[in-house]
């Protein structure tokens, strides 16, 4: 388990050394990156399943938890720690023209993403989040469409993304400052312990709002997601897939961690519901109007992320479970759709009869789209069902509105996605059929892989449910988090020191038990 920190460290090491290595041997530098990814995967698989019952924490530098930084490893972080190298590997730029610095950026992305999900310290999360952000700005510029015109678009989109992201980061920093002023600590477990007393007030709520907006930039949260169509429109689908699929989810995971541990007030959840549902409806509405596939998928991604936020904003473990289901589903489907879209550029009308040309791809597309919409036997349905059912059982009126929004948005989503399907299966060939780009092999492999996983999950839905619910239970268990990070001795110490009454601790426990 101690080796798990290598998942963060090795990619960093590789990233630092790669440009220097490339001066002697470029091949070596590239191979290093791949090797690090493989090692990461091996490390994680070797500890896979060991945290199902009891999460583990790792104190970096061996300093006692509230002082030093800890990594917290539970099912959620382990799952994402595995997904990160796997996804990066899938979307690894294999071609030879890629600049070595871009590989370096990919490694930095891996490291920061892994750090983000593993970290158990608020400011450390900020640092990794910034690293993730800067690496993605770099990648956006680097992977700008290789067209004469496209380059400018990538630059401009990147700048706009950067400014929005930087403002978001500052917001987050202000939020952290407020939290630190209020609670005097940064360790998530320590904060979780103090939260009911210190953060359950207006200051805590503002801090949450600020952090939500800050991290929300990456998570495509409603008010701060204007960069999405621009960036996805300007960069290669490979990077769009990675950003929409993986990076947005990482930001969501951060928000969830913070929310679950630090902010017990229901207003925080409701704020997230409102933003989420505005995201759902606005994203789907614009997607309905879009005239090309990439733009459509970008806005659909905004909508789906809104759905993820709505799901996570449902209180209790069921909300977490619903959120995980939707987030993981989107993580699987959206990259695959982007992969298919990369061969289907141009206005939608030009795709007429594409199904005749490539029936297999069109069939894949239909399958993915159906899952995205939530057609029953496919996993998307179960995810959506979880949301809808749990939204309906909430008493607060905002959830009823959210329910209505989600359902209406689904109808709009069906309208535009099926318009595309009908275009694909149009009996007449479009004018540009002959000059259409071909799909590359790896794109098809990824999309087929996603489809296979979808079907497998559909067949194994029961065991997936158990897995997800156990993950949700573990993630939602604050006391578990606190107990994991602090040993019993430390805990007694902290209670003594902070004059937090033991009764608090017990009532907290009861709260968890009654859930």
């Amino acid at each position: 388990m101690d080796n798990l920190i290598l998942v963060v460290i090795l990619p960093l090491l590789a990233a630092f050394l790669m440009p220097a290595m490339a001066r002697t041997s470029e091949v070596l530098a590239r191979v290093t990156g791949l090797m690090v990814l493989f090692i990461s995967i091996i490390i994680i698989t070797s500890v896979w399943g060991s945290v199902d019952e009891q999460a583990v924490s790792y104190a970096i530098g061996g300093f006692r938890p509230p002082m030093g930084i800890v990594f917290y490893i539970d099912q959620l972080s382990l799952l994402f720690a595995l997904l990160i190298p796997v996804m990066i590997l899938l979307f690894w730029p294999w071609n030879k023209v890629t600049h070595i610095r871009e590989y370096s950026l990919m490694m930095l992305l891996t490291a920061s993403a892994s750090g983000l999900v593993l970290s158990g310290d608020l400011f450390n999360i900020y640092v990794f989040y910034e690293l993730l952000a800067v690496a993605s700005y770099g990648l956006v510029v680097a992977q700008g469409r290789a067209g004469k015109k496209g380059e400018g678009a990538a630059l401009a989109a990147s700048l706009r993304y950067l400014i929005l992201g930087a403002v978001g980061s500052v917001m987050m920093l202000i939020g952290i400052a407020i939290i630190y002023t209020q609670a005097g600590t940064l360790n998530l477990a320590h904060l979780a312990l103090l939260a009911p007393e210190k953060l359950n007030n207006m200051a805590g709520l503002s801090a949450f709002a600020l952090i939500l907006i800050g991290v929300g930039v990456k998570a495509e949260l409603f008010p701060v997601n204007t960069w999405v169509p621009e960036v996805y429109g300007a960069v290669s689908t490979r990077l769009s897939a990675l950003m929409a699929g993986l990076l947005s989810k990482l930001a969501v995971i951060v928000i969830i961690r913070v929310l679950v541990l630090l902010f017990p007030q229901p207003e925080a959840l409701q704020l997230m519901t409102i933003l989420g549902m505005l995201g759902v409806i606005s994203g789907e509405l614009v997607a309905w109007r879009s005239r090309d596939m990439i733009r459509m998928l970008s806005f659909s991604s905004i909508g789906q992320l809104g759905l993820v936020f709505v799901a996570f904003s449902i209180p209790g473990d069921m909300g977490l479970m619903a959120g995980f289901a939707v987030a993981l589903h989107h993580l699987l489907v959206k990259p695959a759709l982007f992969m298919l879209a990369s061969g289907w550029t141009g206005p939608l009308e030009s795709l007429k009869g594409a199904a005749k040309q490539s029936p297999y791809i069109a069939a894949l597309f239909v399958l993915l789209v159906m899952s995205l919409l939530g057609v029953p036997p496919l996993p998307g349905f179960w995810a959506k069902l979880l949301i809808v059912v749990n939204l309906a059982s909430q008493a607060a009126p905002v959830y009823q509105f959210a329910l209505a929004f989600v359902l209406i948005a689904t109808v709009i989503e069906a309208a535009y996605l099926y318009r595309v399907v009908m275009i694909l299966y149009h009996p007449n060939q479009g004018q540009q059929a002959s000059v259409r780009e071909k799909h590359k092999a790896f794109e098809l492999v990824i999309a087929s892989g996603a489809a296979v996983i979808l079907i497998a999950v559909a067949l194994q839905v029961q065991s997936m449910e158990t897995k997800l619910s156990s993950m949700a239970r573990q993630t939602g268990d604050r006391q578990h988090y606190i107990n994991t990070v602090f040993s019993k001795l430390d805990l007694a110490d902290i209670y003594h020191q902070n004059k937090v009454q033991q009764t608090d601790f017990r009532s907290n426990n009861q709260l968890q038990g009654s859930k």
Partner: protein
Amino acid sequence: MSVLDEVFILCALGALVLFVFHRIRGIEKLAVVFYAALLYLLIKMSGLGYGGEVIYSSFSLNILGETLQWRFDAVSWFFAIITVASGLFSAVFMSGKWGESYREKTSNAAYGTLQIALLLNVNSMLILLASGDLLSLFIGWELVSWASFMMMALNPDKQARQAAIKYIVYAMAGAMAFLAAMAYVYGITGSLQYAELAQASAALSNGQIILLSLLFFTGFAIKMGLIPFHLWQAVAYAETPAPGAVFLGAISARMGLYAIIVVLIQLIGLGHLQQIHIPFTFWNLQTVLAWVGALTTIIPTYIALKQNDARHLLAWHGVGQGGYMLLGLMTLNSLGSAGGLLHVFNYATYQAALFMTIGAVIYRTGTANFDKLGGLVTQMPLTFMVMVFSIIGLAGLPPMNGFVSKWMVYRSLLLDGEPLLFVAAVIGTLGTILSVYKLVHNTFLGQLRVEHQNVREAPLSLLIPMLVLAAIMFVTGMMPGLVLDWVASAQLAMGLVPVTYNLGGIVLASGGLDMIWITLILFYGLGVGAIIFYLLGGRAKRVHQYDNYAGGHFLTSRVRYHYSHNFYAGLMHLIGGWYRGSFKKLEQAIVSLVSLLSQLSENMYRSAQPAMMVIIVVVLSLWSISGGIN
């Protein structure tokens, strides 16, 4: 392993085999065998139709703390047997000459896809019918929607494809309404089991029941094409390849009825529907639903009257006939609901037969446009006969089966003291009679067109299913007791008092109906008439088809006169086109609203720093929300 398991395994196997081999010639024979086997399995279950025990599938799924189950009771069985029989007839129709010509026109793959679509439709409907709780009902519901979308999407016609998209949007909206209702039920009861809802519904407040019923009903009404959701169906169904139209027309839309039966009647309960008064009116929920049914019988039927294409005319009728079924069910008495259910069966027979006749006409002439047809009776007499049988049924005239079910509905409305609904139903029937006359006249009567002079009778492979259907219509018309057996046990399963019946018809205290007698008397009367005619030395003179006159206008053999264009011009002028237009405008208004909102959202995303503006909203909402703290 129960018989239901066997059904499902067979379905899965069939789908798999068909999917793998769909390009191979001869697959159609296999499909026919498949439907026959399915029918056989259903017949093995026929105990259900005579009041047998519920059959459970041993397959179940545990999810969300719910146990998903699949089971068949008498209601499901009743609908299932119609479904599978329609599938069988479509498959037979498709397997012969029609299939060959379709193959030639398109491709092996396209033909195979059609077969797959049909099979998926049948399978998904069986899954829907077998649902044992709300969740499995929803799953089945969605499957049916997508399967029929697939069928519709096969249509090359542009308008029909647009209709298919329209359909899927409508269907999605319906499904979402259903989902919302389901979630609402889960919110109240914490479960999705039928039993829980049935139990909980007794304790629900009126408002809750109204909301639930409204949501459920919206979902189901969209599938059935009830007012005000009637716009999509006819256009989408009409121009699907003939066997598809046969199947869709015969049974597909009836799944909405099945769901209404299950949820509104079985679960929410009959008493409830009657007790719940709509606020500010003097209606109760049942009356509202009955009026929806009544309006659905009228409006689409008169739209049908306007159609100039045989398929569209029939499809619009299909929408209207759904109204009768709902009307019958919503009388909630044993006679009316039996009528409604019986109408499902009857309607399936004659709608299938009618679509087949039109399919045959198209097979021979290549068109279903009334302006280009006429006088085919001389060329296709058997087809003509089938059509006459069917339209007698459709118009609800004796001795065909349509008469029985419509009689039951009328009778129950009268007995219930609902004269206005009765009048509405009669108006609907009037429209039906007018339009079926238009159908038969414009297709088969009048003068034959030159280009059709070489048209021959439909091939045997097309005729056989049509004739069999005609026979069924006649037999079940004469002996409705055969089907009433099933209807009665379905009623029992629904929790209604079953209708009393005998082989010939209905037994009522105040005068029943005995179709055997009616038929005999009818034939007797015909016989007497014939005898009198011939005894009086009745002279029949054969006139050539072209040797006729109209309005004093002399016609040469060069100028054919067939009065088909702008049929019922006067009537059309009277009733105008306003009713259809109004609903269309509603639809367009919604589309423009969405479009407007969409544009607004896009502008918001595009404007310089829109995100920041919205943060204001966030800050403000934060403030408003945080009123509770401190």
